[in-house]
């Protein structure tokens, strides 16, 4: 019986990849451990090994194909005693042993076409079809050409553009240079800017965060990448005590213009130690600017602003959003203002406040609610510190109801802060108590069902909205 080889998931968040190269051809005998192909994921080029023995019967997906969905059949192997040439496209399912459960799950979801169409579809699923067009950022002139860009590319472009403009800007972190970034965010930077400005560090967050902060004090503009913000806890003393407090402690004499950036929040199935949103931690510290964008345009415009700022900035990205594609305006000087929230979907009945990946869920919930006759306004905070209270309170004054959606722990969260603001400064506008929708108050579990149960989703946000609307 022919064995189907399927596009493997080679990282926790991989949904598709490029079949860069076949290292075998039909008729080749293969055994377990032989390298069959090179597959480019969103993070790296990986070798794809054979698990089963047999003869290559057919290469289904030709090399060079982009956007091959995880779980798609890429080749067939004829089993022992089977005629490779006669191996027909297998009607039977592939042996379970060669396929991980995650792959199956994803395969079910990813039945769409490959390539750019898939990207467009992915983008559409984030801003659901039929949704009111997101409100244009006031800083983008009408008629500006838009280019579909992934968040990952947008971040890279922002760094590259600022590095071209300012010699003082450099990037340091683990695997940012030769490896092209653990999540490929710094892809191509080494090639363009060389090893002096794109610097691989040893795995010593505490040390290199301090070196970065010191370089900023010495007049440079470092971008320090943390592979994820979970590891930045080892370095948090330099972020808080060295970077955030210096300007104040020196009476405005000594600055620390540095950007600490990297993915933050839960990724996918990586367990408790790799899955935490530190937004509330950093946002509680005076002296820091904290930015947590959702889409690619904001990622680009705000990262450029962060690099230009003379203040220390914590720039919180989200791994699950890196691969999503959004329109980014084609403007040379596309720099967005720090400290300004954005109404991403207008509505009159209720306000949903969110940031980072939560915005995607909030938009999805708003779509569901619209079908029920509830028009939700969705606000993306974008900057967590300084917080744009005015935009939140103005929206609340119009809708009189509010839900805060946050992918993070509920206790002492950004949601808590927004609710406090609503109480202190928006009490007269409230027709219902503000509700928060956060992750469950537990360390993030590994098991797929438990993880799903712990994290926020659109359904929970929609339900909270119904509650505050007394529907």
């Amino acid at each position, binding site marked *: 019986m022919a064995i189907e080889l399927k596009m493997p998931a080679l990282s926790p968040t991989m949904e598709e990849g490029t079949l860069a190269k076949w290292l075998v051809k039909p008729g080749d005998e293969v055994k377990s451990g032989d390298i069959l192909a090179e597959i480019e994921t969103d993070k790296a080029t990986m070798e794809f090994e054979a698990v089963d023995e047999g003869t290559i019967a057919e290469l289904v997906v030709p090399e060079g194909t982009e956007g091959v969905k995880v779980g798609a059949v890429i080749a067939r192997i004829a089993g022992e005693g089977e005629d490779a040439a006669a191996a027909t496209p297998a009607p039977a399912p592939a042996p379970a042993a060669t396929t991980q459960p995650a792959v199956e799950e994803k395969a079910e979801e990813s039945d769409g076409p490959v390539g750019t169409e898939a990207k467009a579809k992915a983008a559409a699923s984030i801003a659901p079809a039929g949704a009111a067009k997101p409100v244009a950022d006031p800083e983008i002139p009408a008629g500006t050409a838009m280019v579909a860009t992934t968040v990952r590319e947008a971040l890279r472009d922002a760094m590259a553009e600022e590095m071209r403009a300012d010699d003082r800007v450099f990037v340091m972190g683990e695997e940012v240079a030769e490896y092209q970034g653990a999540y490929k965010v710094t892809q191509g930077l080494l090639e363009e800017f060389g090893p002096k400005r794109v610097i691989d560090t040893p795995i010593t967050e*505490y040390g290199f965060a301090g070196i970065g902060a*010191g370089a900023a*004090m010495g007049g440079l503009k470092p971008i320090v990448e943390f592979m994820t913000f979970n590891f930045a806890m080892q370095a948090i003393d330099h972020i808080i005590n060295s970077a955030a407090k210096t300007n104040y402690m020196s009476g*405005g004499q000594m600055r620390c213009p540095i950007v600490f950036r990297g993915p933050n929040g839960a990724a996918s199935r990586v367990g408790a130690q790799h899955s935490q949103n530190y937004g509330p931690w950093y946002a509680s510290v005076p002296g820091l600017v904290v930015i947590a964008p959702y889409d690619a345009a904001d990622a680009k415009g705000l990262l450029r602003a962060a690099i230009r*700022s003379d203040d220390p900035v914590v720039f919180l990205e989200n791994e699950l959003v890196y691969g999503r594609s959004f329109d980014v305006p084609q403007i040379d000087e596309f720099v967005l203002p*720090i400290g300004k929230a954005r109404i991403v979907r207008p509505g009159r009945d209720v306000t949903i406040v969110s940031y980072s990946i939560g915005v995607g869920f909030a938009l999805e919930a708003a779509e569901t609610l619209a079908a029920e006759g509830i028009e939700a306004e969705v606000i993306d905070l974008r900057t967590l510190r300084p917080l744009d209270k005015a935009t939140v309170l103005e929206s609340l004054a119009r809708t009189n109801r509010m839900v805060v959606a946050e992918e993070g722990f509920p206790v002492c969260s950004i949601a808590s802060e927004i609710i406090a603001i609503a109480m202190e400064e928006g009490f007269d506008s409230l027709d219902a108590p503000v509700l928060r929708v956060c992750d469950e108050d537990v360390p993030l579990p590994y098991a797929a069902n438990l993880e799903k149960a712990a994290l926020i989703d659109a359904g929970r946000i929609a339900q909270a909205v119904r509650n505050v609307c007394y529907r």
Partner: protein
Amino acid sequence: MRGCKQKETEDLAKPARPRAPRTSKPATTQTPVVQSSEAIAAQDEAEFALRSLQQAHANNKQYEASDAELLRFYEQMVLIRRFEEKAGQLYGLGLIGGFCHLYIGQEAVAVGLQSALKEGHDSVITGYRDHGHMLAYGIDPKVIMAELTGRGAGISRGKGGSMHMFSTEHKFYGGHGIVGAQVPLGAGLAFAHKYREDGGVCMAYFGDGAANQGQVYETFNMAALWKLPIVFVVENNGYAMGTAVRRGSAETHFYRRGTAFRIPGMDVNGMDVLEVRQAAEVALEFVRAGNGPVLMELNTYRYRGHSMSDPAKYRSREEVQEMREKHDPIEAAKQELLKRGVTEDRIKDIDKKVRQQVAEAADFAESSPEPALEELYTDVLVEKY
């Protein structure tokens, strides 16, 4: 003249023990092996042995200062001593609050080392015991004392205090309150010098207590890996707060602690300003030549407690008296001056001038107004958002 610690020195100048050849790269690498592993090991050994700056220091310990230079060192050390005594006094009067760590006894370290730097070009960074390093870098005692008393005219506008003072103009970068944090920050300053190719070096001071911080070794690794122009200075005053070095450190010879990172070490008597200065010459020549960092251990002693609230019960009165009477750096410099024929009157004139300077600083610090209340909200962020 020796520091407080007795330690064996005969092994310092010897080359390190022969070592096993370094393992060659894994077989999978495509880099061709040009030399045999034995040859590489031999060359490696020779190179590392050459890095023993201790030998250069041992060969010539005393800096040949001119009379004018020595007078300058003496004046700076006396300024630090009198300034710190006054600060202690003002603390007792309740004019200085919080933590206040005095540098009395350690003066020769900052003066000897920083006299070898180019003020305003080379960077200096230290921990919370920072008054002496500032004075040694020519920063006005008035604005330092006014910071200690928490006045608006203080160098940090009264918002930093004793442990958080900075002068970017003098390239003095603090003044850091978290033990050991100044070490990677200092490497960052050195990184900036190298990045800008301005020829500057950074001198990063830390104590024997901070020398046990993990971040110090992360920094050693990167500083050596990237050949950063930095001099790491361990001011070993014998006590990490109240913990004697031998009670807190498995390796009490701090100058050896860079060996694992191929950073050459120097063991220096920190109670003799001329020895300190000469050692600085050796270290700076090495660093300025692009060879990467040097680790200097300066053996010194603080006469006062760790901070103002420390009764220093962990050491005997006799120990302190012994250091004060037999190893005082200021007295030694004075004796050297007298030996050279500098008159007692000339030395007294300096003492008088310094007393006057310190009295003025104290007056200024007491009479300056506290910061305006609006200052509470300024300088949190540089920009408006």
